[in-house]
């Protein structure tokens, strides 16, 4: 190269470097980024004393207005534009150890001090944390000239990934082989290996579109809904039991089925969460919309005798607040329960304003978990239809709606446990009101306008009882009287006419007595609920009696599936919400109304109820909803989130590894994809990033040991559900039946031992034991062992992330649990039935069934050694064959037993329980 060119080159390079350097310095000098530069220092060094919890010397750095306000000294610690005269900066340099900040901790580095100084000199501007800024359309990283010539060009996702990879000197790996990809995408999208015909079609199809066709097929399979329901059940803390003490059965599986359908129908995510939060508040809600609200009825209930129902109702409400934030908004809100958030801009009373959205629901920790949606079956459907028709003839719209809701949901009822002023009466076991001889009780302030009928649900051990109701005082004339006789089979509901016109609200005072009660302590009537209702319509019609009887039968003993749902209180039972001092529910202070945190509500819009809340959450301007879901789905596919802390997008959570990608996907999810989860998942699995090989090399392990930048696909151990379901498919045992009450597959004895609960784990019949894991009965205080061993939780509270472990109990579980041994025998039989030509071929087939891949010779050889050793071992003790193969329907031989030992080993392989 000629000398002048060299020197020109040198000069141009120098100029470039100079310009770049200048640009860099210029930027750094000109603008300190509050979020990137300042906030981390404040969070790490200052805020534990000058923040949400403590405000030492009256100085807090959490909110702008606080930080710039006068401190206890009377002067502000920060003077925008004047670092030199700002007390905060002076304290960083002070020589007096009692003055110098951080107080009695290591001095800040010069670099950090200068950042803070510059920030103040530049005006001490605060800015909003990235996660609280709206999701905007992101520009795609441009393609480099080289990318254009690359064989696989990848999708938009890959451009973001490649940009980051390049910056650390790594590259994406090549696409994984077809079989690996087939298994990976099947486990990810449907939770099990793809059906045989889908696998064959894909492996045969050599066209460019074969993978996309596979993805579309998988997304359309019913198994898809089951797989994603498994994820959502952790967030919803779904369980088939109530939680505390006897941990009795809760029938809420219809919600699980609702989830499966919602995922399979690809219900748009905005609608998906609106219905779960507020389906009951939608106009004339359908059964499905009511069922969706069971989401928040998965909170725990305490049946223990002697518990305060209000305490556990409150606990459930707090849990709904925390779960809504963690599951749907990716924010840890729980700390605001006791004090303002120490790091994020949430104030203490904002927690309770948010709680006010949930605090007015009907549920009161009652034994029967009211309100319950009744989905009628058989004859009850006909009865329901005929009563509905009857109601249609009425002109009283109010009564019509009242009765329809009453039949459908059992509301509006007053639970007997709110009774007070008891005289020879008691809240028995703190569950139901019991009245004895000459007993009195009261229920306060009930609206009686337009109420002509009193319905009660009760049991009585005695005949000839008289029940008398008074408004406000026993001195007034009784407004309703009923004769009570002994009830035979459990609860009974009767209708009592109200003989007076009583407008407005009144205390209901009532009395019970029976001549059969010989002494004070003998038990009389016990109430479940009371209900003040308008007259049953159509009293003038000749069929009135018949329809009223049908109605009462339907109300009393419906043939129906009952599911706990959310409903709001009628106005007379509306609860006020108060701020709890330091989170203690007994220390109620200021009264608050429903609202969202002010940082999200600069316009000061009104949000009155859960439906308004859902509207805010699903509004495209909400910065958290879409990001949270995108991040969650990413984590499900890639083993880690773009924000690692799925539960906390706040300033203490992990910083996003690819923020612009997260924003890009979140924007597309809301706009382009119209909240379609299937479309979003397709975007992700179509990317070359997803499709690359999971083999890592030395360079990537050195430069990116945690594979945060995706230079290869992650290897992730399967979830508890996937391990079970996959094994069922591999061994040909799976029962693909969907929906219905939870089932009980094999479980060792002695797992269930709850006090006062006589229930036993009774193994389900026939092939019900081979259903997918989401149908396994989930008892909170005695969870299914395999679920727990493989990192499931007890589902006591919302879990965003299962922390993966690797333990000997997992090994023992897969080696010795009868479930897996039984499946190993089934797999061995399946293979042997095909009469393969050699042991090698049998092993190869079994391995292929388990992993979708054909094993190499070394693996076959290793497994063959086990087969031969097993065969020899069994041959020396012939009784072993029948011990190993207990199933009487299977023809036993030594070859089969030895093969079962081999297939059991295969089911335990890392490659089988890991997504490759």
């Amino acid at each position, binding site marked *: 190269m000629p000398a002048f060119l060299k020197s020109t080159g040198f000069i141009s390079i120098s100029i470039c470097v100079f310009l770049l350097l200048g640009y860099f310095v210029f930027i750094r000098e000109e603008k300190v980024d509050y979020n990137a530069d300042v906030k981390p220092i404040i969070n790490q060094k200052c805020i534990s004393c000058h923040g949400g919890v403590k405000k030492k010397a009256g100085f807090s750095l959490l909110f702008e207005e606080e930080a710039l306000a006068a401190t206890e000294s009377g002067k502000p610690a920060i003077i925008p534009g004047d670092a030199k005269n700002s007390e905060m900066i002076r304290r960083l340099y002070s020589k007096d150890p009692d003055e110098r900040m951080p107080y009695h901790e290591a001095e800040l580095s010069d670099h950090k001090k200068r950042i803070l100084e510059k920030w103040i000199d530049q005006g001490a501007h605060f800015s909003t944390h990235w996660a609280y800024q709206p999701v905007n359309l992101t520009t795609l990283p441009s393609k480099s000239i080289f990318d254009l010539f690359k064989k696989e060009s990848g999708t938009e996702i890959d451009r973001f990934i490649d940009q980051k990879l390049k910056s650390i000197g790594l590259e994406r790996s090549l696409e994984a082989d077809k079989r690996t990809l087939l298994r990976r995408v099947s486990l990810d999208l449907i939770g099990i290996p793809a059906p045989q015909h889908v696998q064959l079609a894909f492996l045969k199809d050599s066209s460019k579109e074969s993978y996309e066709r596979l993805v579309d097929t998988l997304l359309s399979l019913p198994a898809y809904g089951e797989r994603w329901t498994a994820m959502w059940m952790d967030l919803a803390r779904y369980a088939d039991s109530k939680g505390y003490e006897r941990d009795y059965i809760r029938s809420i599986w219809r919600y699980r089925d609702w989830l499966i359908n919602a995922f399979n129908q690809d219900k748009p995510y905005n609608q998906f969460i609106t219905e779960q939060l507020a389906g009951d508040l939608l106009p004339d809600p359908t059964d499905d919309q009511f069922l969706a609200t069971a989401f928040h009825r998965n909170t725990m209930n305490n049946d223990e005798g002697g518990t305060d129902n209000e305490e556990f109702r409150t606990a459930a409400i707090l849990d709904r607040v925390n779960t809504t934030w963690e599951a749907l908004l990716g924010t840890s809100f729980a700390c605001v329960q006791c004090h303002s958030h120490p790091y994020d801009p949430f104030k203490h009373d904002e927690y309770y304003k948010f709680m006010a959205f949930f605090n007015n629901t009907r549920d009161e920790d009652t034994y029967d978990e009211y309100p319950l949606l009744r989905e009628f079956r058989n004859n009850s459907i006909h009865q329901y239809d005929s009563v509905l028709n009857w109601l249609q003839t009425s002109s009283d719209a109010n009564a019509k709606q009242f009765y329809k809701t009453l039949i459908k949901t059992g509301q509006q009822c007053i639970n007997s446990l709110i009774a007070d002023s008891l005289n020879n009466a008691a809240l028995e076991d703190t569950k139901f009101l019991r009245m004895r001889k000459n007993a009195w009780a009261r229920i306060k302030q009930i609206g009686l306008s337009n109420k002509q009928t009193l319905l009660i649900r009760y049991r009585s051990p005695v005949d000839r009882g008289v029940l008398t109701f008074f408004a406000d005082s026993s001195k007034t004339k009784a407004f309703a009287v009923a004769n009570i006789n002994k009830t035979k089979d459990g609860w009974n509901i009767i209708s009592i006419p109200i003989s007076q016109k009583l407008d407005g609200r009144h205390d209901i005072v009532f009395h019970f007595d029976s001549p059969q009660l010989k002494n004070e302590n003998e038990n009389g009537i016990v109430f479940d609920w009371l209900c003040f209702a308008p007259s049953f319509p159509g009293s003038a019609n000749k069929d009135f009696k018949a329809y009223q009887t049908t109605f009462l039968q339907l109300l009393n003993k419906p043939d129906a599936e009952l599911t706990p749902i959310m409903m709001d209180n009628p106005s007379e039972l509306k609860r006020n919400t108060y701020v709890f001092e330091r989170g203690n529910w007994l220390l109620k202070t200021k009264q608050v109304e429903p609202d969202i945190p002010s940082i999200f509500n600069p316009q000061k819009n009104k949000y009155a109820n859960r439906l308004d809340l859902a509207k805010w959450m699903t509004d495209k301007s909400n910065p958290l909803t879409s990001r949270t879901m995108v991040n969650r789905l990413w984590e499900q596919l890639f083993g880690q989130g773009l924000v690692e802390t799925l539960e906390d997008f706040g300033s203490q959570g992990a910083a996003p590894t690819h923020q612009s990608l997260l924003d890009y996907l979140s924007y597309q999810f809301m706009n382009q994809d119209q909240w379609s989860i299937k479309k979003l998942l397709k975007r992700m699995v179509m990317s070359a990033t997803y499709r690359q090989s999971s083999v890592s090399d030395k360079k990537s392990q050195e430069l990116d040991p945690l594979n945060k930048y995706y230079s290869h696909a992650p290897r992730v151990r399967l979830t508890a559900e996937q391990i079970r379901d996959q094994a069922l498919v591999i061994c040909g045992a799976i029962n693909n039946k969907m929906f219905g009450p939870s089932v009980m597959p094999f479980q060792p004895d002695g797992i269930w031992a*709850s006090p006062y609960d006589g229930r036993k784990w009774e193994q389900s019949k026939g092939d019900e034991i081979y259903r997918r894991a989401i149908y396994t009965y989930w008892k909170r205080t005695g969870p299914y062992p395999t679920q727990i061993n493989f990192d499931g939780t007890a589902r006591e509270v919302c879990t965003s992330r299962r*922390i993966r472990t690797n333990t000997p109990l997992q090994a023992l579980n897969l080696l010795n649990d009868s479930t897996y041994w039984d499946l190993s025998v089934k797999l061995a039989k399946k293979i042997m039935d095909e009469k393969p030509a050699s042991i090698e071929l049998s092993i190869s087939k079994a391995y292929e069934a388990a992993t979708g891949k054909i094993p190499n010779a070394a693996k076959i050889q290793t497994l063959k050694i086990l087969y031969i050793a097993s065969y020899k071992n069994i041959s020396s003790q012939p009784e072993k064959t029948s011990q190993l193969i207990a199933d009487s329907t299977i023809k036993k031989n030594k070859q089969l037993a030895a093969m079962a030992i081999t297939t059991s080993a295969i089911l335990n392989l890392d490659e089988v329980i890991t997504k490759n």
Partner: protein
Amino acid sequence: MKSNNIHQEAYRHNLSYNTRRHFLRECRTGMGMLALGSLLDGCNFFSNAENELLAKNPLAAKPSPLLGKAKSVIFLHMAGAPSQLEMFDYKPELQKMDGMDCPDSFIQGKKFAFIRGVPKLLGPQASFKQYGESGIWLSNHMQHFQSVVDEVSLLKAVSTDQFNHAPAQLLMHCGTPRLGRPSMGSWVTYGLGSENSNLPGFVVLTSGGRNPDAGKSVWGSGFLPSVYQGVQCRSEGDPVLFLKDPNGYDRDLRKSSIETINKVNELSYEEYKDPEILSRISQYEMAFKMQIAVPDVMNISDEPAYIHELYGTKPGKESFANNVLLARKLVEKGVRFVQLFDWGWDSHGTDPGTALDQGFVEKCRENDQAVSALLIDLKQRGLLDETLVVWGGEFGRTPMQENRDGKQNSFKGRDHHSDAFCMWMAGAGIKKGFTYGETDPIGYNPIEGKVTVHDIQATILQQLGFDHTAFTYPFQGRNFRLTDVFGKVIDPIIS
């Protein structure tokens, strides 16, 4: 702050162990070539041994941040809440007031689980005498305990704020009355690991045929990784779930199958270079070792006759006494935290089993012999100095006779009482033959030396070498600790 950092560090290491590819970064030389069994040990040559241990085995023994006296804890929980008034808290005044209406001042504004209206006071259903050099009062239900009373510090004014079983048990073990937090044993194994790699670090034994009211959550790991949850060892069926091979397997078959699994996994490691595979290989080896170690330690039939006589144990049946003996065997083998729950102490007096003069006496008899034997046995083995033994229930019982729903119960019984009850601690630096705390003349309220459940937890953690205020784990955006924001070490009982 120092110890806090250590645990933050440990936490981070555990996370990298659990979820990440930490292993290779630290240990990248020729792993796949090393023979099975020495795969992991090979690593120690290359880097900081302690960090390595943490990285590859979350249950590896770790030093405590402070000097601790206790290496192990045996926590004996009498589920249902035993009556302190028939065991430790002698109230002659209450005897005199037997049958009288309870003074209004005790019931005004109070909530009880079952008592309604005005109950009658119930005098002690036992006789009391002073024992040992310490002169501690014990009832006639504590015949054996008389001989070991000089080993314990008796806390006579423990108080809780929960009066229902499940929440009170949760408070006792998880530091909060709600579900979802890690139990004490999980915290401790998270902080200290286990001394014996063939046995779980945190073992739970139950007797009385029932789990405690709060279920398995009282030994759950809450938000800590599930590897730290208590492992329930059972005296019937598999001592640990899935420990026993399927029928027809023998030791040779199991050995060759695990060797095969590990060899094929090694081949997979060659392919993928995923360090998680190496962890899996070591976990399968450990499973194999546990299959021998656990039945061995759980088998009490090899114990000499004098031991059985001492404890009142009968091999082969599920009993509290058997569990107490097992607890000794487990700590002897290096298990960090042994948690016993004994069901049947809820003496309401609704039936003979819960009557203070019937079922309760029977419970005391079994308890008294086994628990006293434990202290004697630990002492003669030199283990008492390093084993902290804690005894108690989730709350106490009222000085009043229960009148459920306002009616006198048919048998002599007491309701739940949260304000004052008795617990004791022994061994591992706890004062010997010492009483702390006093209640009023009817045993209703503490008048001095009141301690809370969080104080008990703070003290246990201190004896293990933790500052309870610094032992934290980040979750949901804040650092959680066992003692929440409460708790103070009970200094007067520390020797």
